């Protein structure tokens, strides 16, 4: 379909502010009387605070107050506490001090005496599952967000003994599901493999720390926060701050990176709001980079095992996967469950079982990071397919194609049909651009100490949601104000999806004003900007709002100029009679008329089905123009996947273990393309993150003291310019998804997993098919593999250097 805005590049309205330094992030705001907050972080991985003596600190000149756990709301476990008397990891905030300046606040923290009772702790899930092993809570060691209860599960010594040191023991799971008949599947297999694997935890490393600033005025809390999402976390933040949602003004026009860590509300951001209420001064809390690592979140580490059977032609007849999640001390994110979902989606095993357990450890919150679970699975499975292809003497693309999902394939336990899947098309498009047939001949070629590796990787994430609200106002000056509550994590999709409304209304993009970034810009209830859902979900909400506006324009024209609404068309910012071009109203005229008519036209009447947040926004906007507002009730019964496929050409120095990427090609299956340049930036950026995941980044905790070893960029190594190719080739399948009115799907997350798995596949290929059973693959591992020396870590170990 020919569109005038969809699929075209444009300059997003916020990009100029980013290049001029005018873009204001949470720490860039100043208010009269603003003071500074510093946090006291737990030095122990598991402890009870017996006593806090802050008398000396509070006597210091310039110190304005202290915020204690008793001053803030507490939530039932396993929710993350704001402040706590029972710290569960090194770096967990216990209290906060406010002072006129930051130096004084820091000095005051030094004067606070805390009496701790140390408790046993663990940073390794298997240790806690072992009989008699340490537990994070006295009566619970397993649980995760979305599971109704925390409980204690111990495996038997026999479970451990039977598995030995090189295989994952598989005791009682926390959850499981099954599809078909595993025994039958394995009996039909030509090749059965049993692989144990570990993927290390790694941080989000958002460039903007979780700094926040807050103040209160006339009963309202003004809250400057770094968040990916705008409307979605508002009710949660309101609950955490202890204020009615209508009295919370959340200001978050820009977010300096989130990658999942700032998708929903996170507790530490609310501390300045509580402190400000207590001392009646605006409070700024700046987090240092080290504090980011101490109390920030990370992608969970995974210890897993898969038994997988292949037919002679490569088809997977059975897959039995077990996943242990190295959860933090609190709620966490169900990565372990997503591993199973992704296995079912991308590889379509004919028979399958997923089992998993999420074990609390004395680590900070583990939360979603780009492809949570799905990308860990990609890292494990794509090199494993290579290994199977080698054993079955199959082409590496053939083994992928024969197992690949297509439109209508079924997924997960419920066997939901897939609305559109073009992973094979993406794979073939990448292969053609990469020159697979020629490049694969270079596999294993050696020049001096350098060996060529050719890798291929794919990944997936669900890509959309439904049921949220769209809102726009056509003002009497003819401008179209599109209100978007999705958030701004840097993908420009807030703007790209708003163009769907402009497309439907046939208006000039220059006449569109985007309202966003602050609650008091009257935003609709929207999903969070996470889970690769924005493009799909928000193009639907903007579509329904525009359709509502269109209908109202036609009705107003009919009432004013005579005839029936369907006698009129909306185009070029006018509503015009089909039969008589002279019978026409401009948007400006229609907006004035809407105000005159009132009722639903100007927002004076509000549909009951809208979310409360949307209703409040419509109330505030009522009478200002023609209001287009609607809840997205477009049917959505099928599963919407985002998929991506990538190829990588590397040179691996087998003497140093260092690799260089010579070529990278990735193709996205994301439905109709909304914004090509933005999509290209996402594909490349996801690729960069994937390279870090595969071979650079990991979180390490000292098992003796529970201390983090990575508290700076130089230790945790997010990729730099020099780690990635200076040019990355990108493309897209560009086939519409039927469940979106303009065919759009999301795509952010698999763009990381396809690169991570392609790099692992390439390293493995350079080494003649060596499968590492571990992510990231570090240079010492490569050198050891080449020399056929044992690795320095135990197969199941987490926290390896």
């Amino acid at each position, binding site marked *: 379909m020919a569109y005038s805005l969809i699929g075209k590049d444009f300059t997003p309205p916020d990009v100029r502010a980013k290049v001029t330094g005018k873009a204001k992030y949470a720490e860039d705001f100043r208010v*009269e009387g*603003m003071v500074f907050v510093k946090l006291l972080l737990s030095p122990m991985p598991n402890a009870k605070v017996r006593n806090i003596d802050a008398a000396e600190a509070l006597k210091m000149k310039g110190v304005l107050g202290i915020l204690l756990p008793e001053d803030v709301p507490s939530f039932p476990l396993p929710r993350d506490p704001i402040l706590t008397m029972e710290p569960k990891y090194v770096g967990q905030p216990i209290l906060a001090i406010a002072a006129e300046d930051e130096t004084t606040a820091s000095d005051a923290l030094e004067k606070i005496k805390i009496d701790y009772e140390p408790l046993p702790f663990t940073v390794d899930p298997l240790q806690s599952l072992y009989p008699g092993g340490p537990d994070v809570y006295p009566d619970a060691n397993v649980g995760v967000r979305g599971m109704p209860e925390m409980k204690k599960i111990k495996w038997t010594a026999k479970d451990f003994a039977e598995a030995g040191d090189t295989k994952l023991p598989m005791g009682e799971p926390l959850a499981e599901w099954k599809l078909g008949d595993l025994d039958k599947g394995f009996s039909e297999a030509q090749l059965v493999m049993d692989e144990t694997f570990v993927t290390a935890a790694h941080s989000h490393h958002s460039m903007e720390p979780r700094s926040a600033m807050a103040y209160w005025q006339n009963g309202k809390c003004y809250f400057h926060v770094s968040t990916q999402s705008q409307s979605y976390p508002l009710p949660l933040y309101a609950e955490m701050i202890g204020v009615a949602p209508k009295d919370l003004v959340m200001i978050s026009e820009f977010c300096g990176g989130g990658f999942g860590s700032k998708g929903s509300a996170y507790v530490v951001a609310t501390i300045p709001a509580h402190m400000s209420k207590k001392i009646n001064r605006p409070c700024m809390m700046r987090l240092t980079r080290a504090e980011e690592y101490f109390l920030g979140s990370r992608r969970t580490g995974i210890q897993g095992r898969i038994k997988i059977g292949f037919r002679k032609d490569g088809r997977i007849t059975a897959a039995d996967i077990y996943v242990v999640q190295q959860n933090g001390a609190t709620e966490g994110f169900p990565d372990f469950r997503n591993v199973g979902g992704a296995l079912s989606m991308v590889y379509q095993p004919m028979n399958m079982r997923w089992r998993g357990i999420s074990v609390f450890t004395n680590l900070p919150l583990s939360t979603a990071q780009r492809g949570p679970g799905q990308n860990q699975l990609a890292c494990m499975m794509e090199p494993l397919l290579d290994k199977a292809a080698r054993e079955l003497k199959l082409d590496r693309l053939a083994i992928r194609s024969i197992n690949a999902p297509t439109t209508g394939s079924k997924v997960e336990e419920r066997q939901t049909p897939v609305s559109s899947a073009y992973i094979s098309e993406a794979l073939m498009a990448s292969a053609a651009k990469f020159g697979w047939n020629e490049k694969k001949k270079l596999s294993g070629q050696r020049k001096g100490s350098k060996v060529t590796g050719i890798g291929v990787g794919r990944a997936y994430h669900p890509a959309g949601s439904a049921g949220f609200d769209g809102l726009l106002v056509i003002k009497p000056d003819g401008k179209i104000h599109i209100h978007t509550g999705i958030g701004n994590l840097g993908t420009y999709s807030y703007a790209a999806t708003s163009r769907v409304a402009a497309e439907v209304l046939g208006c000039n993009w220059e006449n569109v004003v985007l309202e966003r970034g602050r609650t008091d810009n009257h935003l609709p209830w929207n999903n969070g900007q996470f889970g690769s859902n924005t493009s799909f979900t928000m193009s639907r909400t903007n579509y329904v709002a525009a359709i509502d506006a269109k209908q109202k324009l036609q009705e107003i024209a009919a009432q004013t100029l005579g005839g029936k609404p369907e006698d009129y068309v909306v185009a070029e910012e006018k509503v015009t009679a089909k039969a008589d071009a002279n019978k026409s109203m401009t948007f400006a005229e229609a907006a004035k008329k809407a105000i005159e008519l009132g009722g639903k036209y100007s927002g004076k009447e509000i549909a009951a089905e809208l979310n409360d947040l949307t209703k409040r926004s419509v109330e505030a906007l009522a009478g200002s123009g023609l209001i287009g507002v609607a809840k997205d009730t477009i049917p959505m019964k099928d599963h919407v996947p985002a998929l991506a496929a990538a190829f990588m050409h590397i040179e691996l120095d087998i003497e140093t273990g260092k690799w260089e990427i010579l070529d990278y090609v990735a193709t996205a299956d994301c439905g109709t393309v909304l914004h090509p340049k933005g999509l290209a930036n996402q594909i490349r950026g996801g690729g960069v993150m994937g390279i870090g995941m595969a071979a650079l980044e990991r979180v390490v905790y000292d098992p003796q003291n529970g201390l983090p070893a990575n508290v700076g960029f130089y230790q945790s190594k997010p990729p730099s310019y020099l780690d990635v190719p200076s040019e990355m080739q990108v493309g897209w399948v560009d086939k519409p998804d039927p469940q979106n009115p303009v065919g759009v799907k999301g795509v952010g997350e698999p763009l990381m997993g396809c690169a991570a798995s392609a790099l692992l596949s390439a390293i493995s290929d350079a080494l003649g098919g060596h499968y590492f059973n571990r992510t990231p693959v570090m240079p010492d591992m490569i050198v050891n593999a080449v020399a056929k020396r044992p690795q320095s870590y135990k197969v199941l170990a987490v926290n390896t250097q």
Partner: protein
Amino acid sequence: MATTDDMAIGRDPVTRRRFIKSIIASGAATSAAAYYLAGCSDGSAPAAGSVERLITLKVNGQDRRVDILPNETLAMTLRYKLGLTGTKLGCDRGECGACTVLINDVGHNSCSTLTHGVRGRAVTTVEGLEGPNGELHVVQQAMIDELGPQCGFCTPGQVMSAVGLLKANPKPTRAEARQAMAGNLCRCGAYDHYLNAVMRAAKSA
């Protein structure tokens, strides 16, 4: 209520009084007064024999009088006393480059530069790149054309490193640009687009 830093006047009346008194004493006009904030001040009086507190900085072509501490970093002075929040703090220890500014046309991590050390030297921040009528610097325009930024937090540092590179080497190769920009981390991974922008700017300059 004021929410922009250029409206924020003295936080602590005592400090503010002392500050104004000292300005009067020095007989100097001040452009910094309007931005004075206690973010990095300890509120104490200067010790006898210590370095001078009230100094003049050359920032973006203007002389700015500012009261600073002996251990104050340029990033904190720019952000909390001169209202120049375009310079970002990503790590405060010279690892990420988000705080890059030019000092005498050479890129520096302002988080790891003492303010006292830049007296008499020309400091350029991202706010100082635009022309008198708001026209963008070629690097800024190229960053927009190539859609360089994603989240944008590292962008001012990337822009400043690119401007510094092009001053030293107006026609870099892509490989040279990659090396020159390597001190600027971008977690969104927009490196390719930033490099495209540097090369575009080099071509159009």
